[in-house]
């Protein structure tokens, strides 16, 4: 570890928080329906869209209608994307002439992009036409991100409102998220990415003559426009197979910093927006503190583990000062690779600039653990906030009684209904991660796809299902996942990981909105301040840790202790 490395990490986090504060204030205004500096340009567009779609923007929806609206939009998005992928061969803007995707891969990919997972069982530059990338995948990158933001805002309204029947209007929220937040940010940052050397063209490839005089076909395409929303919307689906480790998808160290900033900024800002919307900024500060404390610990552990390297290789004569550089880009080095790995999994982004499977076992456990803690640090756009709030509800329920009152969070009593729904949502991750892992690791067919022996192989499987269920999308390389088993089960894991969580979460939003908002006093459980921060961190670590400790002990922990003992596989 170097002080330069730490400085880069520190600058990034400061830049994120500094930008997220005003962005959060802006988002709060947008979702409260107030005028903002973009209104003169965008308000007429917004009104036009509602007229076109026949949406009455003033009509409030109850949580059921809101959820159904969301499901309808996502189902339509899935159908559209599936159709595009299956018909790719006959659709235009296909310079390389790629054919249709197989049904299982098309299913997996469509689910993947609709659920904001962006798990990629395919290689972008060898599978997807520019049409599929732009009209298929990029559209879903926007819609899935807007869906997440809208849902989070609905839950926040549940807390902010008192005795209300509605939680907002899904179509309005999704439109505003796209129009006022995602599109402008994506547009501006895409231009900066282009300036940093990222391609943006409708061409498919060009041919270069290498130094040896050989001819090489190099894929290009509309990269910058897709990367901008891929990062901002915490989607993570790369244009190229190796994602942000590809020089065209992540050309410079500065561009790399910008991309990490893009990943974090919206998810961080929405926590500040939450503070504004519930009328108590201290609540947002507490959540932001929880998220960044855990995220920085994650970065530190990964950085430390990677800098320590592997003793076996060092005994074989490798310079220990280099750390573990396997699977990392020299352009980024240890610090920025560790930073990216933690951020992309603390978020449910899943874009990678280094191969997580090549990290040391402990370093590789960091992304795995961050996914398993529920994708709430700070999690995907919107989905991170609602996941974090559900966790806060559980924390308040367990410990809130200790002040001698029935539990309440932000003035809302947490009662049987909220607990029931929070428990249902919490079951999704262990059921699909552990259930599928235990099956796949032992069935001869699926197990054939596992690339490495020993505990590392188990980690690959565990990581794949965690990434799918957590809607992260990153992979622990060397798992051959493009087979009907993996495509189908991971598709199911992604679907349930997204929607089986959302439905109970929205039931909580509806139930909370209907409750009166109670006044706070010195007798109420304080949900700002260091005590709550510590409590929430403890609950996140203990609840997440208890579910996955046995699996981690058999995977990365076993591998790490064996590696230190000099055992190889």
């Amino acid at each position, binding site marked *: 570890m170097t002080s330069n490395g730490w400085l880069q990490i520190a600058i990034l986090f400061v830049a994120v928080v500094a930008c997220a504060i005003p962005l959060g204030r802006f988002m709060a205004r947008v979702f409260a329906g107030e005028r903002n500096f973009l209104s003169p340009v965008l308000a007429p567009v917004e009104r036009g869209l509602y007229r076109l779609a026949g949406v009455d923007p003033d009509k409030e929806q109850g949580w059921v209608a809101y959820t159904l609206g969301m499901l309808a939009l996502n189902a339509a998005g899935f159908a559209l994307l599936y159709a595009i992928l299956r018909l790719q061969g006959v659709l235009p803007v296909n310079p390389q002439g790629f054919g249709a995707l197989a049904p299982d891969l098309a299913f997996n990919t469509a689910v993947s992009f609709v659920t904001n997972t962006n798990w990629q069982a395919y290689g972008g530059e060898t599978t997807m036409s520019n049409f599929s990338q732009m009209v298929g995948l990029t559209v879903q990158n926007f819609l899935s991100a807007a869906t997440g933001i809208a849902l989070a805002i609905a839950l926040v309204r549940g807390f902010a409102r008192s005795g209300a029947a509605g939680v907002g209007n899904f179509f309005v929220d999704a439109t505003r998220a796209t129009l006022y937040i995602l599109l402008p940010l994506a547009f501006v940052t895409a231009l900066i990415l282009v300036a940093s050397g990222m391609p943006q063209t409708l061409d498919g490839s060009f041919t270069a003559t290498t130094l040896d005089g050989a001819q090489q076909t190099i894929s290009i395409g509309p990269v910058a426009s897709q990367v901008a929303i891929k990062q901002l919307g915490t989607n993570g689906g790369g244009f190229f197979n190796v994602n942000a480790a590809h020089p065209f998808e992540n050309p410079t160290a500065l561009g790399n910093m910008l991309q990490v900033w893009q990943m974090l900024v919206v998810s961080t800002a929405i926590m500040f927006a939450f503070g504004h919307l519930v009328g108590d900024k201290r609540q947002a500060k507490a959540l932001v503190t929880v998220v960044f404390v855990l995220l920085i610990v994650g970065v530190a552990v990964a950085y430390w583990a990677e800098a320590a390297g592997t003793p076996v290789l060092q005994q074989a004569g490798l310079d220990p000062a280099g750390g573990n550089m396997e699977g990392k880009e020299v352009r980024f080095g240890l610090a920025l690779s560790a930073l990216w790995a933690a951020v992309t999994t603390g978020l449910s982004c899943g874009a990678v600039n280094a191969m997580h499977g090549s990290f040391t076992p402990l370093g590789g456990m960091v992304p795995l653990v961050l996914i398993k803690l529920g994708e709430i640090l700070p999690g995907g756009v919107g989905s991170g906030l609602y996941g974090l709030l559900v966790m806060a509800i559980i924390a308040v329920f367990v410990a809130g009684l200790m002040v001698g009152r029935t539990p309440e969070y932000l003035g809302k009593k947490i009662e049987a209904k909220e*607990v029931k729904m929070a*428990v249902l949502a919490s079951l999704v991750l262990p059921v699909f991660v552990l*259930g599928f892992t235990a099956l796949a690791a032992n069935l001869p067919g699926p197990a054939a796809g596992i690339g490495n022996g020993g505990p590392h192989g188990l980690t690959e499987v565990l990581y794949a299902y965690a990434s799918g269920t957590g809607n992260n999308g990153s992979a622990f390389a060397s798992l051959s996942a493009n087979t009907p088993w993996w495509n189908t089960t991971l598709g199911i894991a992604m679907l349930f990981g997204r929607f089986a969580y959302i439905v109970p979460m929205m039931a909580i939003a509806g139930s909370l909105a209907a409750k*009166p908002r109670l006044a706070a006093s*010195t007798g109420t459980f304080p949900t700002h301040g260091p005590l709550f921060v*510590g409590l929430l961190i403890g609950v996140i670590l203990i609840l997440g840790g208890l*579910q996955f400790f046995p*699996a981690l002990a058999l995977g990365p922990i076993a591998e790490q202790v064996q590696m230190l*003992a000099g055992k190889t596989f």
Partner: protein
Amino acid sequence: MSAKTVSSIASPDLIGRAAIDAVKKLNPRSLMKNPVIFVTEVVATLVTAIFLRDLLTGAPVSFTGQIMGWLWFTVLFANFAEAVAEGRGRAQAESLKRARTDTVAKKLSDPRNRERFTRVSALDLKVGDFVLVEAGDLVPGDGEIIEGIASVNEAAITGESAPVIRESGGDRSAVTGGTTVVSDFVVVRITAAAGSSFLDRMIALVEGAERQKTPNEIALTILLVGMTLIFLITVVTLYGLGLYGGTELAVPVLVALLVTLIPTTIGGLLSAIGIAGMDRLVRHNVLAMSGRAVEAAGDVDTLLLDKTGTITFGNRMATEIIPVPGVSAREATEAAVLASLADETAEGRSILALARETFGIDVTVVPDGASFVPFSAATRISGIDLVGRKVRKGAVDAVRRFVSEGTTGKVSEPAEFNAAVDRIARSGGTPLGLAENGRLLGVIHLKDVVKPDIKERFAELRRMGIRTVMVTGDNPVTAAAIASEAGVDDFIAEATPQDKLSYIRNEQRRGRLVAMCGDGTNDAPALAQADVGVAMQTGTQAAREAGNMVDLDSDPTKLIEIVGIGKQLLMTRGSLTTFSIANDVAKYFAIIPALFIVAIPELSVLNVMGLSTPQSAILSAVIFNALIIIALIPLALRGVPYKPASAESVLARNLLIYGLGGILVPFIGIKLIDLAVTALGLA
């Protein structure tokens, strides 16, 4: 009757009975109500089956047998906790049941004719029947007196042996079945059918027979079920994960892991905590009509307290006598004593007491030839006529009139007199004029005396975030003065029942939970509206129906204790839940390395406790898990120590003890048990 002190958690007798009940409670149908312990019972049965199979096939059974034994102990210990709590309530119910013996009622066919009645069993009485209850009779059922006045011994219910007066009309018209009329007679209209009377409900409550889970208990149970499911998934899938790594885990070992992880501690103690909370209320002579009310008591934000009896002693007392210039203090005091000699009211007595304290004046003999002028509502003046002396005290304007009548010249009214009157009125006191013949002597200051320790209690409540509101019939000036002296946060002056009701509604609209106590029929709407309405046992039937608690001591100050009991119940529940979950960390470190040590010997680094063998590690965790239930029963029954403080400091303290303690204690406990297990050669 003051709160009974509890010297010990349970008598040996009670423990013996609870042990038997613990075995009876193994019946799966009754255990279903407690899902965590039910799961434990199911897996204990599974391990028992494996044990028996191994026994028959001759496989080694020592380890499985021990695991099996401790699993059953876990279930029994949880049942025992509940049985002890129930047993304590049952002992109280026994004494109540004695009052519920079958009485014979004198049923009147015509309430106006007391001569003609038929003797029927009290059990046959219906709502609306009229009965005659005469001296020496037991009141056959709950009802309302429609005629007569009687003194009634309510010891059966309240434990208070001094009889109370019950009469028709007004706020003292309710009688309770099981009490005894000791003098006179009353005609009672029955208002509750046999089996649903106050006494019946009280017995059911303390026995826990009708105990239903409170809303928060239901929510907590859901969370515990959820955690049980999550751990079930973790443990079942661990079989598959282990298989991949080359370890086939045995069922008893997986069961051991499951049972140590699922929240058996709080699952086993949850209902005992609830029963004990109700029991604590009963020991304070308060009956809660539902568990919901006890929980709501913990949540209260605003307390409506009647001034009289709660904040002040309830009678005005003389605190100073201010003479006008030219009159000595002693002279004025002597005149005040003379004027009060025949005054039997508390105010009059307090003037004599003040004189005794300040000047040692103690008049016991009435001077010869004295004639008293009694107080009347019309004259508002009283005093004494002696030879040549007419001494009076009374309302200031009445005294002024008396003085002007007693003199022919212009009345000299010193500015100091008016100033003193004003000052007293402004301070919330009542000024009494004092005069002799045609001369003003001074002013007597009567004051509503605030209870000495009440200000500290309100400060305590404020630290807990509870607002206190004083309700009084006084005028706003008086009310404000007393309010500031007592340190309440707000007051309602010249309060009518409607004022109370709208104040409560207003508070609730602002998101606050309100508690109040009351006794009159006109309090009933407010009692019903309040989140916690404590009716006085001496109150009317309507008030008792409207409230969700009844205070048998009829002590309005009790409201503060009730809030404390509610808070303590919730705190105990939360603390033990936190403790139970935090315990799991250590259990993982005990069991996980033990499970896989053969396939992955390097995992021994996780054996931070240095447990001797894999088998003793697993066994120690299971034993700790069972014993901790027993160890925590006293805490569950007594409740966690509770001191009024802000939520912030209470949370910090409890998180430290039960959160951090919950993580650390099992590391130590499991290590110690491991040492014992190894020393005894059990594994």
